[in-house]
């Protein structure tokens, strides 16, 4: 396979779209439930954990972009092969593909669980699974530009939800935030670690990078995108701390959704019904991009046609999605996935960066010697 990868002109994307890609990828299923998990570790200082996780994600993205810039126009599949050689590179590529599929399944499972818990307790899992997968297939076959279009509209069309934050704010109690820094630093760091599942999504840059038109603007829009998401997370975390009592927050599985229960408009109540169903549009770009990243990986590593691969991957996701139906199982799945994700998204980029740097130094000195 070729290490360098230059997509055709008609598939290229304007770099500012990276803002929407990042935001759409990061906001997904984690945002509905992260408050409780962080709060159970860091108590009223949970917002500090969110800030720390945000700063850390900026650092990781900075390193990611540096890695990509060292290697010219290439994606993670090309870089791993240059760095590790053909065989190890291919195996690691498989790992990354598997990771993308796993992320896809985690998002799908969690969303179906929310749907079943809140709205349709009796509708079987397979029906939701099949319907969403069909939508994903239709979107995927449209190509990368359509997928990024879904990201864009998912952001634009869900801005209105921010306006709803005002309602729970009226019932908030600022004293819940005090005293600041009561929790010890270890718990705060633990909370930061627990943010993994919520904050991941920017690793898509590793795959989408060759498709961006102006490579010099990548840093700017990538950080803007992450900053937007981090501010959103911080807002929601603060809101949850001041709106819920500590005991209540620890027992609420989806605090972000419960927040909206208080909203009462003259013509509509229980607006969380609308929001949960609207969430389909918010998880759709996640699903599409993860699937696209996985199939792009197969295409780059093995040069296979994507039609059959798509079918196999969809089956690969569909069949396991029928199992793990209870809350405990899904929680366990999330837990294991967040451990894998922590190593792949937060630790691995540093290793890859160091290795590519060393490799580059070596090759340049070799050239000099010759």
């Amino acid at each position, binding site marked *: 396979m070729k290490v360098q990868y230059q997509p055709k002109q008609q598939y290229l994307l304007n770099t500012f779209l990276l803002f929407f890609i990042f935001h759409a990828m990061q906001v997904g299923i984690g945002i509905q439930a992260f408050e409780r998990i962080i709060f159970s570790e860091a108590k009223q200082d949970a917002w500090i954990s969110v800030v720390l996780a945000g700063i850390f994600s900026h650092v990781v993205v900075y390193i990611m972009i540096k890695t990509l810039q060292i290697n010219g126009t290439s994606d993670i599949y090309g870089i791993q092969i240059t760095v590790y050689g053909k065989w190890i590179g291919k195996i690691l590529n498989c790992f990354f593909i598997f990771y993308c599929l796993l992320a896809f399944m985690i998002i799908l499972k969690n969303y179906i669980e929310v749907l079943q818990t809140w709205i349709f307790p009796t509708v079987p899992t397979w029906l939701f699974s099949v319907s969403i997968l069909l939508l994903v297939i239709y979107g995927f076959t449209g190509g990368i530009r359509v997928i990024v279009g879904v990201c864009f509209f998912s952001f634009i069309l869900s801005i209105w939800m921010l306006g709803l934050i005002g309602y729970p704010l009226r019932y908030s109690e600022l004293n819940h935030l005090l005293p600041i820094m009561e929790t010890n630093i270890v718990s705060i760091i633990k909370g930061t670690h627990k943010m993994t599942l919520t904050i991941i999504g920017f690793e898509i840059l590793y795959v989408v990078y060759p498709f961006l038109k102006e490579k010099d603007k990548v840093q700017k829009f990538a950080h803007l995108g992450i900053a937007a998401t981090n501010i959103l997370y911080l807002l929601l975390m603060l809101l949850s701390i001041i709106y819920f009592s500590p005991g209540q927050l620890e027992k609420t599985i989806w605090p972000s959704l419960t927040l909206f229960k208080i909203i009462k408009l003259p013509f509509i109540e229980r607006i969380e019904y609308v929001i949960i*169903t609207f969430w389909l549009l918010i998880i759709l770009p996640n699903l599409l991009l993860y699937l696209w990243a996985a199939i792009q990986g197969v295409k780059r590593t093995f040069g296979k046609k994507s039609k059959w691969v798509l079918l196999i991957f969809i089956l690969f996701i569909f069949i396991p999605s029928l199992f793990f139906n209870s809350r405990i199982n899904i929680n366990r799945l999330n837990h294991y996935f967040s451990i894998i994700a922590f190593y792949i998204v937060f630790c691995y980029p540093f290793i890859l960066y160091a290795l590519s740097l060393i490799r580059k130094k070596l090759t340049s000195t070799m050239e000099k010697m010759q």
Partner: protein
Amino acid sequence: MFFKKKKFTKEKAEKQAKNENLIPTSRELMSAEFKKRLQHSADILENEVGNSGITLFSIGNLIDKTMLHRDIIEPIISQSFDSIQVIMEHLSVGEIRKTDHMDTVVQSVLDGSVVIYLEGNLFVLLAHIPARLGRALSFALNESQVVGPQVAFTESLMINLGLIRNYIKDSNLSVENLVVGSRSNKSVAIVSLNGIASQQMVGIVRKRIQNLKIDAILDSSQLAQLIEDNSLTIFPQLALTERPDRICDWLLKGKLAIIVDGSSLVIGSPQSFVEFFQTLEDSNVNWQIGSFLRLLRVSALFLSVFFTAIYVACLTFHYEVIPQTLLITLTESRARVPFPPIIEAFLLEFVIELLREAGARLPTKVGQTMGIVGGIVIGTAAVQAGFTSNILIIIIALAALGSFVTPSYTMGNVIRILRFPLIILAGFWGFYGIMYGFCFLLIHLLRQSSLGSPFLAPFYPPRFEDWKDSLIRLPFSVTYKRPDQTRPEDEYKYDYKKAKDHN
């Protein structure tokens, strides 16, 4: 040996075809050949002109008789000629040409020409004097507008082109003629402004029209379906209009107009989704009012597509979302209805569609009666009989109203049809079904293109410059750029720095 023989027969056949295609040298032969080619039709006209030795052939209904007498017969009747060139000098017809091909002769006779035949000559003259079949200019009835010109296109290609030239007196206006249909032989003209319109797009349209393999097209709406990017989708990707001012506005933005002879609707391309919800009147009134009207139409679109579906979803699954005070009224009005909401909604939507279709096919006066019958009799009676609830009638009427607000008839139809799958989805899956339908439509629209430019432009791919003239319309002093969607060769309408002090 074998090849030689084949080649020989081929050459022979070619030679024979050439001979058949030549103009016969005697009058009888010519007459026989001409009639044979036109299937001995009753409307063939053949007259010998006095003693001049000239014979005129034509199809009587297709030519202008006054011109025939005044400009062709009169100048030549009292003279005799020995060459075709001399005759040409005597005629006072504007459009005249010489040919020696029988095929050309027949073709131009069908187009309204008179054949001037002089015995013994290898050439004939073709004088183009078509009868004016058709009507005078009239009001734009289907796309009427309060502020703005009232004239509409007619069925004549030449008149339509004249109308466009009247609005844009620019030497760069280019008209390219093509012929479509092996049997209908329709003249189709691609009109564009050279130097603004993208030549690549002109090329795409030309290629698509030339590549058509079809026996006949009767109207521009059929041509539009044939040359669309994706003919499987329900959404129209090319717009039809009967307003010359609208076409001129499009031409000035860098779009192409496709005029079909015999059709009073002109195709404008490429088009984006939002443009189906714009009218030229938005530019003719103040920008605040224009923006308000556009926002009104887009909200009507959402109302029309989703309102009934939301009703069905709420009453089938999500009673909780309706506030208590509203719920009492709703359940009271639904108390006597025996059907589930989905059947109730379908029933009433069906009635509304019936009324609309009946109204569309009837003359205006009877149509009004239909409205009264439908609105009062069926509406009131259905509620009293306990078939439907009052509130559903309000909702469905609003949704129908919303679909009629859409300025484009083709898009209005699509909006009406889209409601049905959404009602089904809402009936099965509630809000999730509606959202599912919405996501599907979003992906579907993202996948469409019009002449290769994205259908959801300028929203996606985002071209923030063009948002100024999309859902809203900002004043002319701000919209100095042509839309990116047409990939214009000249991006700027005018130099906005120079115009700053004046506009």
